[in-house]
């Protein structure tokens, strides 16, 4: 040692790692340049012939690695340090190598001999160093060379070496699976080890193996089960449960065997991490055991009602897993789930929303939608996270869409009042919330699409829809439609006072184009429902509906034309309409003529056309509108008379497609042209034939597939695509239906103010629910009476004072574990305000009964839904 002391003198002035860090910290201003300078210096030091200087330089590489430097160029020097006999150099070398080298480093081959030598040196700590290194960096070559040495260490007398070797063997198996057969028996022996930490290591490795290749681990189930029974180490128990969960999916009998043990654990375990793991095992592997699912859901609800957000988050996750086979679980805990929607944590809210999405069904859609809309309003006020808001909108729109969760038809809307409500409260409500804030365009498209879709399918909604469309047009200009108090049921345009005015000045008050397109089309197509045509014309055609570069006015022009024809038709029977027609004609002539100079050609074209038609067919003479060509006008009206209907696909298949085959046999080109082409060397005939064959065969395939698709598809009453006029005629309406229909038309106006007056929800009785779930009556009351929460709270309080591997609350650790240190645990979790929660609970408890059992529509509902089709 003393001899070496002199040789260190050259390195005496060398910076140590600490010196380096200190000097870098002193150069805050030019840190990057200084670092680069230092790195070059260290690279020089690495080349030193002095071993200690080299080792110290190598150690400094850690720091550069942390700063994002690629230090693999120094790999050779690192390996040199590893191969030194001096312990500290070796240790440094191994550490730096494990941090900086990767399995693809070329120079790793050089270490093979060194590793073999160090692995065999069990008495010193060299073997441990080599194992740590191998655990980080092992590739196939090294794995193949060293696997026998490592597997020998599996039966080393030192437990410390044994447990490290177990992990390294696993890593080797990953890169060199050929060794599995020879190593697995030795690994299995470790499952019998007397030392608990070695046992724990073995179990951990088996858990990993099970998650990759469950069949490999199946033979060891009895042993694992035995360990689990007698385990007092939570970490180990968790790992075994993980293993068994993975194995449940391959070995179906396992879940039954596990039942008593898991039940026992769920009842008696106090450590939350273990309890959670038990729940996870049930939720993923043991869904076929009903008794334990009940118990599991109880425990989960206990977690949910805790303050700890971690447990909330995790149990919401498991709830979702349980829900897939036991939907009743979430119905029972829906209050808690809705509370989670108000959580301050975005992650928890998302999870809760995920569950809420599953909760939605016919009978509770309205209530849930109301809650979600309220959340949405709050969110937009707080400018909450955009992602969550988007998924709220997504949930709402999804639930009302034509197909939802794979079901066809509108699964959550049945009676016409439902559709009224959906149009007004949800679609219109969403648009109103977001006039001042941009939706994502995808949402806009969806809203517009659904709006048109529903209105086309559901006749009774059209009146409401027309009014909504009108309102959108005015909303887009920052104005509002208000019911006039003097005249009955007529609207007045009013400026919106505060919110949108700022937007109007920015010119951003426009609704998105998809919405306006939809509104224009609806106004035109269902113009017979328009009560104030003048308002509609102004809404459609006055300035600033669309952006100046938009060709959207073409739709507005067409819609206003349709509306004019409708008005004329009404005038023929009702002379009161004369003034409207006259006023409209003057207005339209004026606007259309001004639009003939619109920069958009599409708009120009329409303006020219309809201006011409209008001035050629009608004339104002002596303050009276007269028609010049009677026949032409009646024909024109008839064009739009026939209502559009979504065509049933069976009807589509009857429709003979154009006979392309014959057409294509005739050449398109003249003979001369053809000859020219042939002269140019292009074999047109051949080309045509090939093309034709492709086309014909495609058509045939399509035809056949259409036939196949339609054969089994009998019409269902819930399928709104099925709009069969013949059936409507054949089936005389019952008195009840007539009455209901009449009531809708009467009340539809009232709907505009009171969205909820027309709830036609029928209460399915409890028995149907039970049959559907295959479960006994949900013991909701019992659950609350026995109240597991109280006892649980006591348990957890005692628990949190424990140390070790139990899941410990951070706040308790703060005082206890790191008391005097600088590293104090972060401030304890703030208590949530209870008051708001209570309020929400109240409002929700009202809706509880209705939402509780909401699985399938009863016959009454089905009948109602028939009426519209």
């Amino acid at each position, binding site marked *: 040692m003393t001899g070496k*002391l002199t040789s260190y003198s050259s390195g005496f002035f060398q910076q140590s790692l600490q010196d380096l860090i200190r000097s870098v910290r002193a150069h805050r201003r030019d840190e990057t340049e200084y670092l680069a300078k230092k790195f070059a210096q260290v690279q020089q030091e690495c080349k030193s012939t002095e071993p200690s200087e080299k080792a110290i330089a190598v150690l400094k590489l850690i720091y550069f690695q942390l700063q994002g430097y690629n230090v693999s160029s120094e790999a050779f020097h690192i390996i040199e340090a590893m191969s030194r006999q001096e312990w500290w150099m070796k240790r440094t070398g191994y550490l730096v190598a494990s941090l900086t080298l990767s399995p693809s480093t070329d120079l790793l081959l050089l270490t093979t001999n060194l590793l073999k030598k160090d692995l065999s040196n069990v008495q010193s700590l060299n073997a441990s160093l080599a194992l740590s290194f191998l655990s980080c960096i092992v590739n196939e070559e090294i794995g193949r060379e060293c696997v026998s040495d490592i597997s020998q260490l599996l039966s080393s007398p030192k437990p410390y070496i044994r447990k490290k070797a177990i992990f390294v063997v696993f890593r080797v198996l*990953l890169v060199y699976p050929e060794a599995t057969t020879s190593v697995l028996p030795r690994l299995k022996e470790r499952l019998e080890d007397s030392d608990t930490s070695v046992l724990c290591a073995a179990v951990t490795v088996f858990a990993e193996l099970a998650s990759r290749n469950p069949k490999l681990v199946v033979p060891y189930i009895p042993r694992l089960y035995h360990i689990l029974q007698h385990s007092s180490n939570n970490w180990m128990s968790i790992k075994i449960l993980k293993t068994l969960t993975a194995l449940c999916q391959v070995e179906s009998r396992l879940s039954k065997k596990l039942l008593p043990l898991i039940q026992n654990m769920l009842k008696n375990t106090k450590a939350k991490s273990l309890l959670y793991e038990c729940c996870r095992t049930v939720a993923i592997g043991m869904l076929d055991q009903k008794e334990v699912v009940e118990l599991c859901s109880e425990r989960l609800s206990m977690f949910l009602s805790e303050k700890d957000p971690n447990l909330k988050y995790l149990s919401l996750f498991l709830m979702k897993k349980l829900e897939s086979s036991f939907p009743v679980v979430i119905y029972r805990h829906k209050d808690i789930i809705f509370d989670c929607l108000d959580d301050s944590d975005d992650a928890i809210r998302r999870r809760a929303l995920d569950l809420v999405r599953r909760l939605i069904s016919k009978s509770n859609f309205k209530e849930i939608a109301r809650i979600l809309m309220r959340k949405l309003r709050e969110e937009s006020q707080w400018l909450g996270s955009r992602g969550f808001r988007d998924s709220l909108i997504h949930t709402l729109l999804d639930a009302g869409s034509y197909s939802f969760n794979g079901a066809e038809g509108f699964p959550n809307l049945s009676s016409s009042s439902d559709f009224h409500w959906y149009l007004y409260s949800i679609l219109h409500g969403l648009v109103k919330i977001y006039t001042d804030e941009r939706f994502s365009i995808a949402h806009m498209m969806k809203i517009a699409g659904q709006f048109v879709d529903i209105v086309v399918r559901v006749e009774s909604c059209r009146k409401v829809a027309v009014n909504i469309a009108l309102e959108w047009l005015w909303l887009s200009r920052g104005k509002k439609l208000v019911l006039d108090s003097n005249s009955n049921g007529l609207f007045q345009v009013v400026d919106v006072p505060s919110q949108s005015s700022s937007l109007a000045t920015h010119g951003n008050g426009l609704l998105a184009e998809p919405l306006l397109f939809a509104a224009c089309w609806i106004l035109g197509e269902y113009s017979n429902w328009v009560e104030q045509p003048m308002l509609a014309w102004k809404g459609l055609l006055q300035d600033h509906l669309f952006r100046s570069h938009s060709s959207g006015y073409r739709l507005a022009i067409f819609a206003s034309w349709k509306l004019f024809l409708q008005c004329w038709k009404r005038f023929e029977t009702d002379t009161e309409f004369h003034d409207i027609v006259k006023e409209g004609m003057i207005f339209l002539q004026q606007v259309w003529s001004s639009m003939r100079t619109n920069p958009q050609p599409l708009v120009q074209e329409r303006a020219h056309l309809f201006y011409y038609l209008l001035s050629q067919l009608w004339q104002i003479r002596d303050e009276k509108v007269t028609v010049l060509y009677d026949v032409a006008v009646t024909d024109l009206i008839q064009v739009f008379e026939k209502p559009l209907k979504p065509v049933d696909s069976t009807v589509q298949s009857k429709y003979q497609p154009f006979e392309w085959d014959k057409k294509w046999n005739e050449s398109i080109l003249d003979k001369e042209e053809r000859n020219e082409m042939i002269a140019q060397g292009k074999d047109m005939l051949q080309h045509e034939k090939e093309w034709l064959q492709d086309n014909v065969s495609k058509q045939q395939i399509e035809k056949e597939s259409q036939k196949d698709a339609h054969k089994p598809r009998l019409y269902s009453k819930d399928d709104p695509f099925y709009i069969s006029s013949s059936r409507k005629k054949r089936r005389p309406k019952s008195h009840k239906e007539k009455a209901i229909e009449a009531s809708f038309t009467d009340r539809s106006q009232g709907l505009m103010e009171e969205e909820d007056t027309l709830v036609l929800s029928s209460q399915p009785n409890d028995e149907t629910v039970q049959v559907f779930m295959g479960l006994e009556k949900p013991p909701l009351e019992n659950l609350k009476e026995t109240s597991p929460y109280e006892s649980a709270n006591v348990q957890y309080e005692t628990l949190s004072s424990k140390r070790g591997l139990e899941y410990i609350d951070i706040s308790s650790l703060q005082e206890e574990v790191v008391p005097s240190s600088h590293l104090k645990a972060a401030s304890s979790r703030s208590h949530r305000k209870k008051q708001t929660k209570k309020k929400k609970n109240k409002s929700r408890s009202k809706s509880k009964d209705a939402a509780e059992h909401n699985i399938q529509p009863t016959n009454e509902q089905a009948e109602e839904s028939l009426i519209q089709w």
Partner: protein
Amino acid sequence: MSSVCLFVNIQQSAVKLYSHSVMRQFEWLLKFLLGMIRFLLIINNHGKARLTKFYSFYSEEQQQKLVRECYALVTRRGEEMCNFLEASFPFLENDLRIIYRHYATLYFVCGVDAVESELGILDLIQVFVETLDRCFENVCELDIIFHPDKVHYVLDEIIVGGLVMETNVTEIYNAVQLANNQEARLLHGNKALNRVFRQ
């Protein structure tokens, strides 16, 4: 020393041949390493990495990106929020779950796969901190800044190859001390080295 030198020439020719197969191996490995802890980062409140340890293989760029993005994810979360995140990084193939804990000035961030127990990892971070506290006697950020090597030695006794080896603070402490003692014994009387190493 000499044995290593002998290899140098062989290395230059042979390694190039091998590198292709090794790289293929490497890709395959990436896909296979689905399980386990992927990385453990210690980041301070200002986003500076204080310690990084990766159990899967990321390039230096990816490592730096991970540090930045993890910090961005973690820093905007309040204390009352849960300690788990689901993160998908565009530059990584698989989605990761981030489990983190915040102590005074430091975030301990752990990236794990789907198999690992969340609550278990949360406890593990606690164990790690407790052990550091014992090794450094009231650990603080400065200890971790100036002694990254020692922190790594501690970490190596807790996590081996991405799997959790030991969760008992005393056992970990003893294992680290055993190696440290050996170093101290061999360095005994060597003043120059002591000056360099045991500051």
